[in-house]
């Protein structure tokens, strides 16, 4: 009677057995990897907008302050997007006929809002508040990256819970002096005397409480 298994069968069986043992772990690892990969978090993904607004031009080149448009960033949870009338303060005077700005003019003329696509998305069960982060010395660039270098807006950080907690557990290294908070080009490297503990004391931050569930979820 002929052999049922060829000489290589043992090897195959071993590989299959090994693969079966590894598969669950590999599956979980793959799922986790996918979950935190830029593919899933949409990190660095440029989102189409009705108007290709350039932060590089307005912030980097012209030097307009963040708060000129994002007016409620120091007051409310929502930093707010500018009403069309804010755009028109300048664009009723300059670039009045630019084709790119047609949606803004239409919005203003017909009183229909511009619908911007959200770039930085936080899950609905997270009650993120811009104002408290600004008050506690977190500069815009910590979460939004070098906005002044972005012709089109993108999300530069993963915005996962892990990423939030990294800072909530150890906020010190991410803080900036008061006068540099709205400077998009500021990085901790510019501050040779950057002392995390001094910042935490100055801004009255209690890192032990920052990981309470109720800080973000309710």
């Amino acid at each position, binding site marked *: 009677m002929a052999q049922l298994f060829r000489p290589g069968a043992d090897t195959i069986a071993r590989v299959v057995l090994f693969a079966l043992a590894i598969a669950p772990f590999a599956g979980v690892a793959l799922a986790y990897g996918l979950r935190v990969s830029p593919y899933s978090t949409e990190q660095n993904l440029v989102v189409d907008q009705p108007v290709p607004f350039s932060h590089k031009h307005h912030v980097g080149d012209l030097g307009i302050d963040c708060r000129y448009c994002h007016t409620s960033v120091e007051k*409310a949870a929502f930093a707010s997007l500018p009403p069309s009338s804010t755009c028109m303060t300048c664009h009723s005077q300059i670039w009045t006929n630019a084709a790119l700005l047609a949606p803004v003019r239409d919005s203003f003329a017909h009183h229909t809002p511009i619908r911007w696509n959200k770039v930085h998305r936080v899950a609905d069960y997270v009650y993120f508040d811009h104002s408290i982060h600004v008050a506690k010395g977190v500069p815009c660039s910590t979460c939004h990256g070098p906005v002044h270098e972005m012709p089109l807006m993108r999300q530069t950080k993963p915005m996962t819970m892990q990423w939030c907690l990294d800072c909530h557990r150890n906020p010190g290294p991410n803080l900036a002096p008061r006068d540099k908070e709205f400077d998009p080009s500021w990085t901790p490297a510019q501050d040779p005397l950057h002392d995390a503990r001094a910042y935490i004391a100055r801004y009255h931050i209690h890192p032990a409480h920052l990981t309470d569930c109720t800080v973000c979820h309710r």
Partner: protein
Amino acid sequence: MSGKRFTLFEAKGRSASAPELPPRGLDRREALAMLSAGMATALSACGKPREQIVPYVEQPEGLTPGLPQRYATALTLGGYGRGVMAIAVDGRPIKIEGSPNHPYSLGSTDAFAEAEILSLYDPARAQAVFKGEEPSSWTALQTALLSRLERLKGRQGAGFTLLTGRIVSPTELRLIAALKMAYPAMAWRRYEPVNDDNARAGARLAFGRPLTVLPKLGQAQAVLCLDADPLGSGPEQIVNGRGFAEARKAGGGFARWYAAEPGWSLTGANADHRLALTPAQVGALARHVAGKLGAPTGGETLPVQAARFADACAADLIAHTGHALVLAGESQSPDIHALAHWMNSRLQAPVSALEPLDLNPDDHLASIAALAADLKTGRVDTLIVLGANPAYDAPLALGLPDAMRKAGFSVHFTAYDNETSAACQWRAPLSHALEGWGDARALDGTASLVQPLIRPLYGTKTVSECVALLAGDAAAASHDITRQTWTDKAGGDLDGFWKRALTDGVIASSAQAATPLPPARLPQMAQAAPPPSLTLCLSPDPSLYDGRYAENAWLQECPKPITSEVWGAAVAISPEDAVRLGLKDADHVRLSAEGRSVIAPVRVTPGQAQGALSAFLGGGRTRAGPIGTGVGQDFGKLRGVGGSRALAVTVEHAPGHGGAPAFQSTRLLEGDARKLSPTIDLATLAGLKSHPLDPVKTPPSMLPAAPVLATDAREPAWGMVIDAAVCIGCNACVVSCQAENNVPVVGPEEIARGRDMHWLRIDAYDVGDPHDPRPAFQPVPCMQCEHAPCEPVCPVEASSHDHEGLNAQVYNRCIGTRFCESNCPYKVRRFNFYGYAEEQAYANLGAESLKAQKNPEVTVRDRGVMEKCTYCVQRISAARKLAEKEDREIGPHEVVTACQSSCPTQAIRFGDLNDPASGLAGLREDPRHYALLGELGTRPRTTYLARLRNPNPALSEAGE
């Protein structure tokens, strides 16, 4: 699967039969289909929806997106206003709170005011003009109406009838007066089902004119309520509740309350002495007490117990002359009201009298009866019904629905398509109070402006705009109409006056000047008719009022005090009568009076007067909308043409069994009621050692021994102390919590399965003895235990503690094992068995418009998630962030929970246990302090002060 609906759950219609879980199995094909559908969904549904940000084109001045704005305005109940603060976020009103400056709000609310916010977004609201069942328009209505009125002008308006509810708003009165100038022969009828006809008639008997007499409960030291319910529902509930609480403070003078009533009212439940008597016996008791005060009455045949009660009470009233008060209820005859006035003047009672604000001189019943007579004789050519719903709430004996069809032309201006709309040719939608300008006056005449927080959601007009339309001015806007009213009174500076009135919430010194009370005449006592063997006593529903809130799901699901019934209520019958008639709990009976009858379940109720049945008005609506239609029974239709709220009925068995669903059966705490809700007599309070109610020793615990109280004094340790002595059981906190925390409504079937969702419930214990039952109210939110039994059993740590002592529930982590619910000794955890909030909402509650009501600071919980009271963590968080931004500590009274803000008696106090200024730590040292089930060692942060009772020694010894 063609022709077969593929639904996971049975459609949730309302079934008449007892609710059961639908017996439903999957067949093989369905199971395979679902399996493959599930796999396909898992593989394909990874994409997140693309969200958009839609900024304003021009941002309104003063608005910061996401920050709440508060506007002072007023809401009316039965025509009278209570000041409120309406809170809007991004232009959406989301919550009602009290207005501290308003004398009839005092910063608190009642359940009806809280629930108005749901009515605003109710998808069943009237939204367009209809002619019959055909959609029409305001222009068409205006054309038809004005051509009609033009013809009537020739005959001075004879045949033109306007029917309204009670109107005391200065603007609406001004417009109606102007209308009467234009049509001198028009008839203005006015009808409220919960009216004060007997009180007016009583005042006429005593003083010669219908003065309004307002009690000052805060100054009364001895109060006798003759079937009166000052603490019950109505526009005066808040101010009366506050007066009750103020006069019953340990340490100061402590008022003693007596109540004689047929069925349980909130007043009776909170009184020190309560006697169950039929309305006729209450009248006899009143005459007996008056006799003791010197009236030539007496010789009444009172039961022994009642005579002893009356003697002790009369002695107490006389002993407190100057601070003693007698109040008569609306089901008592005008004689008894007049007698109460006479006793009050004898006792120099703390009352104030006002000329009536209601300028319609007729009594309510006389007015509606005149309308019915006019309709039947064909004298009504054009009938305008403004807001009222007489086809439902006027006595059926008047035959109004049919009579109204006889009017040549009829228009119903209404907020809902209801019974009266069906009897009118046209119906036109009215705006909600938060959608238009206006003004309102409180019971004492204090005026406030009503300001809109939102543009009308639909094509609606305010009441004042509708009256202007009748006067031919269709273009008038409520803003201009209201300003015009106040032009004269503003003294030249209308803009300044207007701004001040809007920011203050009241118009300064607008209260009606008190009239010196003329001496009360002793009425001629009519010979009392022999009392019927069974009297049915009707009172306004504590959650639906006269039925006008039947379409409000929050109120339908708001448990009635004491019985905890929701979605309808049974007739209360005394145990003795039940035995005599062979009735058991939830048996159905047919109640008949003068040929009209109602079939309803009975509830055998200890403490109900023998010979008296009690039921609520406001049920059994036939055309209320998807929520309110067919819930409960319409007992009001048994009333005769006189509209009396106490009427003779006969009772017979009817087929059927089963009462209204009730809450508490499934949430009952285990233990002795007197221990769970202890009561202390005022006399023994002084001699108490420090903490008699606290457990002797805490049992051992596996949890860390150190208290979770913050070690760093800068950190708050949140706690709540509820004073059971002043909780009157009014339910304002329950509805307030529901509005603030996006608590869903589950519907009667789910309630019957024990699945209510209220985060805060008011338990009612019977702490009396079998022949003298006495309810004790106990609001139960989450105890926020320091050693929380729910925490160690959660496999995913969805239930965990934070540094400020909050026992947090993290919805996005919860996997729905319900272990925490089983392990909670207080039974405060609620599970979303279905997607109650949206996709599987009851009736029309998943509608798009209702999403706008949701508080954006609180998660809308999904199916399969556990939830519970959070101590309004969103409010704590907001206060903490504000304090940190301003680099200061949170103020002692900065965080106010929703339940606390609504409480009319300020029974609920919340604050930081580490901050002496908050006063919370001091309350915990009170001798009355106790922890609910404290012996379990859970170390609750929510604790209680025991009920206090001030019994009359003369009665205590005799009674027990």
